[in-house]
């Protein structure tokens, strides 16, 4: 089948790509557009490292033919990262040591972004539920759940939700 041009909104700007049918959004992001923040753990829907937002909903970009996002709004980790510093959710991941190798992190951050958009103060159970499709092989998930709670607390101004967070070690390296 012939290649075709697909256009969509990527992190706030219009992009057009020439693709063969069934090319995944993940492939286009990483290999045609240079958006390598979206990771490639398994390419079969098993790990969530490729999670991006499509019209605000978290989706695994390795399972998504790019034709399916034509005319839609795609947000990747690059799109939520400010030019200077970090977004509050990213800062929460840093503060709780919620990553080691970092391979799962862009997917976890995008998932958290969508979760807190829909539910600004999720319970621990709701956070666990939301993480169900995203694999982390390093941290044992506990610090990631802490990060979600810390990000929620900083967004909602609820200091009592900080309970599970590690002590502040920002003075250490």
């Amino acid at each position, binding site marked *: 089948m012939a290649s075709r041009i697909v256009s969509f909104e990527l992190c706030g700007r219009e992009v057009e790509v020439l693709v063969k049918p069934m090319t995944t959004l993940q492939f286009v992001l990483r290999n045609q557009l240079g958006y390598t923040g979206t990771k490639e753990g*398994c390419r079969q829907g*098993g790990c969530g490292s490729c999670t991006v937002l499509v019209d605000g909903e978290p989706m695994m970009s390795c399972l998504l033919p790019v034709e399916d996002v034509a005319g839609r709004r795609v947000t990747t980790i690059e799109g939520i990262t400010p030019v200077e510093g970090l977004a509050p959710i990213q800062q929460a991941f840093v503060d709780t040591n919620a990553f080691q190798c970092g391979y799962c992190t862009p997917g976890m951050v995008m998932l958290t972004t969508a979760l807190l958009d829909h539910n600004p103060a999720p319970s621990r159970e709701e956070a666990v539920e939301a993480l169900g499709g995203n694999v982390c092989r390093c941290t044992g998930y506990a610090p990631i759940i802490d990060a979600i709670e810390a990000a929620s607390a900083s967004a909602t101004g609820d200091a009592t939700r900080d309970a599970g967070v590690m002590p502040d070690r920002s003075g250490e*390296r």
Partner: protein
Amino acid sequence: MAKLRGTGIAAVNYPTGMNLGGDPSQALIHATTSGSFVVTLSSSDLGQGLRTVIGQIAAETLGVAADEIVIDTADTDTGPHCMGTFASRATHRVGNAVKAAALETRGALLEVAALELGAPVDRLELDGFGNVLVAGEPARCARVADVASKAQFQYGRTISGRGAYMKPKSPVDPETGAMDPDSTEAHACTVAEVEVDTETGQVAVLSIRSAYEVGRQVNPALVRGQIVGGAFMGMSHALYETTEPYYPNPDHKPKDFSEYVMPGPAELPEIDCVVLEVPSSTGPYGVKGVGEMTANSPIPAIVNAIYHACGVRFDDLPVTAEKILRGLESKRSAEGAGPGVTGSGSNRPDAASNAGSDASGTADAAGGR
């Protein structure tokens, strides 16, 4: 049918480094014109935090702020030799090489500072904030950044250092097999609590609590990260993960990542630890290694807890629901024959003799590398 609870304990004695023809690591450091220090290594950071702790060790030894250290692990073809990051060796062995390189670099820095300040090297000190001071004369000082710049543009000198660490290969005694392979040893003990569902065979791990003795902690947050992540991985090995579920029979092998069974955040038990610091005599600033060992003792602790809960001894991992149910079944059919029986995973003729051993006895998690 019932949900049975049990508690198990296990300990690990974990060696740092290994006996690989000397198992060396080397490091090079040089100052840039702006007074930052580049530490060049071939040792890779897998996420355990090597770059952070090596930066801390270099900054501490040089007497500069950690912000001024740049860790370059870009290329194992062109960097100084390192055996690698495995066997929990990097903080210890790479750290020793970096400390030696930082000491030599510090000496070279102070030689240039001595020219600049007109004072002998032995009267100079670094304040840890980017300044070289003449001891007792606070007015006489120079910024490290200026010294580094002048070394290159005014004095034509390098500010650099080399470091190597190697433990000579230890010969093996052919009679006894005795040797001295490691650099130091860290220790841990884990207590796990489980609940075994005798109807479904499912095991829920309720808690994994450990005490670790890891030498001096360079970065306590990273140590805790290793311990918590390792406990979860240990649970995963104990109950879920295998590429060969019916080895040597190849049936039901996971063909790809989506079929590989792993626990997720819903299976997260309560994980906690305390860390004791007993400095090693051989590591930089007394460090030992805390990496792979964190997934070791949780495994036998969980398997011992299962035995405590339901009286079936398993010596084949992972302890799946199927093995639990088969183990409970053979226990029932052998009821009266003894206090416990072996799980179906084992064909070992001596397995029956294990069955009576104390459930909460210490099992040694041999430090698998």
